[in-house]
């Protein structure tokens, strides 16, 4: 009885993550990879993601603290971060990463044919820098929110027992 209740809770929690746009279908890909050999594969990957991306977040933070933003470098970091985030299906984080990278490109003068790198005037440059910083705050927020949600979710999953994790309703 308790088990059934937990299972239902797992299903509901999971569904809400999709419904609220935190996760996309890539997460289901991960779930499909879960098998007897790796019964906790999803959780392992998510843990790995949060461990590894902490390093990237720090790097980006440092790069953003500089007076003169190196948009190329920022774009490189964000590319990595976006790659990892998309691999686990972190939909919102990924979307913010995409936005960030667009600003990086704008900062580099790309996508704005009338502005060269040197020609980017002071205002536009500061504007772009601000947008980068602001977007990064948003990324961190989404990143933290997702972490909290997923942790809660995995906790319920663990309580519900291993059988539940092995066969998601497809």
């Amino acid at each position, binding site marked *: 009885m308790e088990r059934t209740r937990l299972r239902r809770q797992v299903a509901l929690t999971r569904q809400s993550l999709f419904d609220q746009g935190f996760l996309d279908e890539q997460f289901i890909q991960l779930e499909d990879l879960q098998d007897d050999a790796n019964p906790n594969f999803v959780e392992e990957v998510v843990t790995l993601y949060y461990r590894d991306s902490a390093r990237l977040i720090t790097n980006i933070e440092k790069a953003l603290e500089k007076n003169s933003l190196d948009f190329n470098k920022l774009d490189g970091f964000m590319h990595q971060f*976006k*790659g990892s985030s998309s691999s686990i299906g972190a939909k919102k984080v990924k979307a913010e990463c995409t936005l960030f990278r667009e600003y990086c490109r704008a900062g580099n003068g790309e996508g704005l044919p009338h502005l060269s790198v040197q020609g980017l005037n002071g205002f536009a440059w500061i504007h772009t820098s601000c947008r980068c910083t602001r977007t990064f705050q948003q990324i961190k927020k989404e990143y933290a929110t997702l972490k909290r949600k997923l942790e809660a979710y995995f906790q319920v999953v663990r309580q519900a027992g291993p059988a539940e994790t092995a066969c998601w309703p497809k």
Partner: protein
Amino acid sequence: MLNLGYCKGSMSTASSGGVSDQFPAGLRVLVVDDDPTCLVILEKMLRICLYEVTKCNRAEIALSLLRENRNGYDIVISDVHMPDMDGFKLLELIGLEMDLPVIMMSADDGKNVVMKGVTHGACDYLIKPIRIEALKNIWQHVVRKKKKNEWKDLEQSGSVEEGGDRQQKQSEDADYSSSANEGSWKNSKRRKDEEEEVDERDDTSTLKKPRVVWSVELHQQFVAAVNQLGIDKAVPKKILELMNVPGLTRENVASHLQKYRLYLRRLSGVSQHQSGMGNSFISTQEATYGSLSSLNGLDLQTLAAASQIPAQSLATLQAAGLGRSTAKPRMPMPIVDQRNLFSFENPKLRFGEGQQQHLNNGKQINLLHGIPTTMEPKQLANMHHSAQSLGSMNMQLNAHGDQSGSLLMQMSQQQSRGQILNEATSSQVPRLPSSIGQPIVNNALASGVLARNGLAESGRGTGFNPVSQSSSTMNFPLNTTAELTATSFALGSAPGVPSLTSKGMFPEEISSEIKGPGGFIMPSYDIFSDLQHHRSHDWELQNAGMTFNGSQQSNSLQSNVDVASSVLAHQGFSSSQSNGQGRNISAVGKPMFSAGDATDHVNAQSLGQPLNNFFAENLVRVKTERVPDASLQTTLFNEQFGQEDLMSALLKQQQQQQAGIGPAENEFDFDGYSLDNIPV
């Protein structure tokens, strides 16, 4: 003969003939990604596909794994962005050292990056996040590669003497069989390469001697040496001297050079193909020409079948055009697009995308394949001789700047003769689309000469309503300085020649020696003619006179400006309508022959950005409706365009020479002279 060892180990079940039930289980995959999350997910996915997975997070590690066990992997999957080594570099090295299929992957789905992957020889490009469905299919690349090599082996087992004919035949087949049969096309190309170097390859593939490990640094030294010497002049001994690496033997270098050449050819094969595809893309866009576009579908084969062109000519065409690898992808390209390529595609080809530059080296090799690099005028003439009966030629030559002028004169002369011959051949002159060369960016003084020639005519019926068009464009990107200050020449001409009455076109290109980082664009004097036959002789004289004018014009320009400028010459010709002698010649080309000549004058810093593309389009409409008797209206429109960007880039030189540029008020603008209403 050559066993490249794909079928070793667990793959041995998938032997050459068929595929076992287990296949692709056990496919040995090497995954390289610096992102641990992606790596773990990929590994899991590949294992679920029952592949045998080796993962590593550094490109260098991957490379050493591959070197340690050359036959230990069937396929490599690599991330594009890695801290220690760019994924493309890894791709390049793998392509160079082992003939393994490599799949690139990245979260970056930008077209440029994907294109870069393809042009570097990646067999696939996966966008992250990777889905397992994509991985389930990767075994096909292994099979494809294996098949390719089997074919190659088969080819090599035949006698070399026979090989020549067979290869010729097969490459023709590849040309005609399908529009986008990349596989067969590339195969025939590969085979050709193999045959040429069959001896050497046998030596190197045995791997009995102690092998030198070509590290990234060593390879870069090697590439630097080759570039310094020029790929065609690079011989192992000289490379070895330049590299000056102790312990390295001439044989090591020779082997590596050979692989490098193969690699470059493979790359250029890909890029060639792309260009071809690009062209056809244009062609669909430009399908606004009504009846003409319906003729686009005609290819030479069809024409030959209809006996509109003598078989001999066709054969010559094949020999002259198709025999060269450059022409292959373009054969079906309709002539209508020549002009469009000139005005639109061309700048892009030259400076549009960074990858183009990257490819230039490879392209150059390929294009020059079989053509002497430093070409004497005589040689060129000889080559032309074979092509002249076609009136169409495809030539990419690499000549020194001061040589190119005379060469091109020859070219255009040959060409005009060809045109006449064509007309003599039949009343229905087939269109002979020629091809377009690729841009060359040379490091040093050698200049690339890009020739684009399109001559075509198409006739319908018995000529009472002939619709014809021909265009001939020549384009010369020249790079004259070591720091890659690009100088481009664009010679454009787009005459429209109603097929029955016209007596040829005479594009005369005069190019001058280039001094300094200047682009000099000379107009080519194309004359649109709508003449009766008996008038043609006079007309030719007229033409000669005009050409002379033109050359004077350009000479004076040169001396004034001292070529520290980029001059855009631009011509637009419309065709004409005339009602004469009961004929209704409607020249479709009226709005069509606005030849947009674009010139890029790009300094090294802006290289790769299509900043200075001018699409200048002038439309000169000539109507010759007034006299039923043949009359000629020729308009030469010669304009020079300067742009502020350009100006600023060249400010220094210009300041010195501002005094007397051109006969006009603005230093870079002078009104073209036009010759109107020349009765002939």
